[in-house]
């Protein structure tokens, strides 16, 4: 498998935080990412939308190299993604990730979940890490659950803890892969509200979601993917009111019928 090459053909723009250039990836015969070009600026909120299986999760996971890519370059803050190892681990600490299935550490309490990365990765003092963890848990509205184990929390609460866990690393960017898809309907809003607040606070975010309300109110840009390609990029208003491509029109008509 070829590694991401370190080419520098153009100086990155001042506020460019993540840049994917001509990225390709296969799963066996399946060309899951095809010539992906995507730039995310500092402070920008980008919503990725598209049919199931179009490669949205793979795109998201490629940004912190949970998936390797075969060709093209991915840079974060001007630095190309390094090989697996200490340097990559350090870079991943700067990229927060929130999963569809929460993935809280099942054997740790909520508080420990939010402290662990600070102490083990950032080498913070235990007491400082605990203070920060409690503040973050309060901020996402689960401060009273600090001593419980993840399994004792509702899905919405678990996802908010997962957001706090990622925020505890002071990430430069947050990636969300369908953060509300595994939630019961009544819990979706409590998670979206936390994300909306984050967006208002200026966090750079990539959000894979079908929540159009969130996209309209929080996103600067909507990226529509189908069959491993970015088919359309537009502002939320443009995209939802006047999609240009047939694929997008077709997709929107399906999700709007629900």
């Amino acid at each position, binding site marked *: 498998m070829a590694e991401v090459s370190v080419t520098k053909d153009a100086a990155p723009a001042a506020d460019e935080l993540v840049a994917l250039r001509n990225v390709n990836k296969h799963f066996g015969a399946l060309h899951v990412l095809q010539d992906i070009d995507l730039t995310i600026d500092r402070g920008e909120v980008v919503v990725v939308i598209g049919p199931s299986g179009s490669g949205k999760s793979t795109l998201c996971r490629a940004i*912190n190299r*949970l998936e390797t890519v075969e060709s093209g370059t991915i840079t974060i803050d001007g630095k190309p993604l390094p090989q*697996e*190892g*200490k340097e990559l*681990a*350090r*870079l*991943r*600490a*700067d*990229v*927060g*990730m929130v*999963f569809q*299935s929460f*993935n*809280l*550490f*099942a*054997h740790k309490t909520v508080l420990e979940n939010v402290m*662990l*990365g600070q102490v*083990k*990765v*950032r080498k913070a003092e235990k007491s400082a890490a605990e203070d920060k963890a409690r503040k973050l848990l309060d901020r996402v509205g689960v401060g009273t659950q600090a001593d419980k*184990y993840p*399994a004792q929390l509702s899905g919405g609460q678990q996802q908010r803890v*997962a957001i706090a*866990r*990622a925020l505890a*690393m002071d990430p430069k960017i947050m990636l969300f892969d369908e953060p509300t898809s595994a939630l019961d309907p009544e819990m979706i809003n409590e998670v979206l509200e936390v994300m909306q607040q984050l967006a208002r606070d200026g966090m750079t975010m990539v959000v894979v979601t079908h929540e159009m309300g969130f996209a309209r109110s929080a996103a600067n840009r909507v990226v529509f993917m189908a069959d491993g390609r970015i088919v359309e990029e537009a502002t939320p208003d443009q995209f939802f009111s006047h999609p240009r491509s047939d694929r997008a029109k077709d997709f929107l008509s399906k999700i709007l019928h629900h």
Partner: protein
Amino acid sequence: MNVLLDHLPEFREGFIGTVLLTLSSGLLAMVLGVIVAGFRVSPVPPLRFLGAAWVTLFRNTPLTLLFLIAWFVVPVIFWPGLSPWTKAILALGFYTSAFVCEAVRSGISTVPLGQAEAARSIGMTFIQTLRLIVLPQATRTVIAPLSSIFIALTKNSAIAGAFSVAELFGVQKLLSDKGFAIVPIFLFVAIAYLIITFTISGLFRLLERRMGVAR
């Protein structure tokens, strides 16, 4: 009964020998087994190969052959002048480590992949992910197979007796060579093994219950 009472020191020495041999080779097997399991799931292909080779080698070689190698090959090629104890611990420990490795590895595979991904995504290294997130959650499923592995180790340690290490099984040979009736001797030796293996399975069951409450 007389055989036991008259040779209590021999029996005691043999019993302690078996316990110590099991404990020390068990410890060695645990340390090696966990490390090799780490190799087997590591992202580095040469380490994965090394781990697989280790398991294949030690799981498929008869233990008696490993003892012979420890006795007659290792001193010539690697370290001369090893004590019989050390050689027995090496043979038993290396052999058992292959089984420990596979038990740990299957425990690791019961931990959802998302746990390791979440750990890596907050910047933990591979070793931190394994040590802090995956292994602690694998422990519970590893305890039951480990119990069987250590019971097998206890019984396997009898081979050391044939190589003149003072342990339980050797006592039997010592006494029957002196012409005592073998049936009571065998009975006492068997009971002594039972005591050890029952203790092991009891301890592991206790551990399993403890882990169940912990979460």
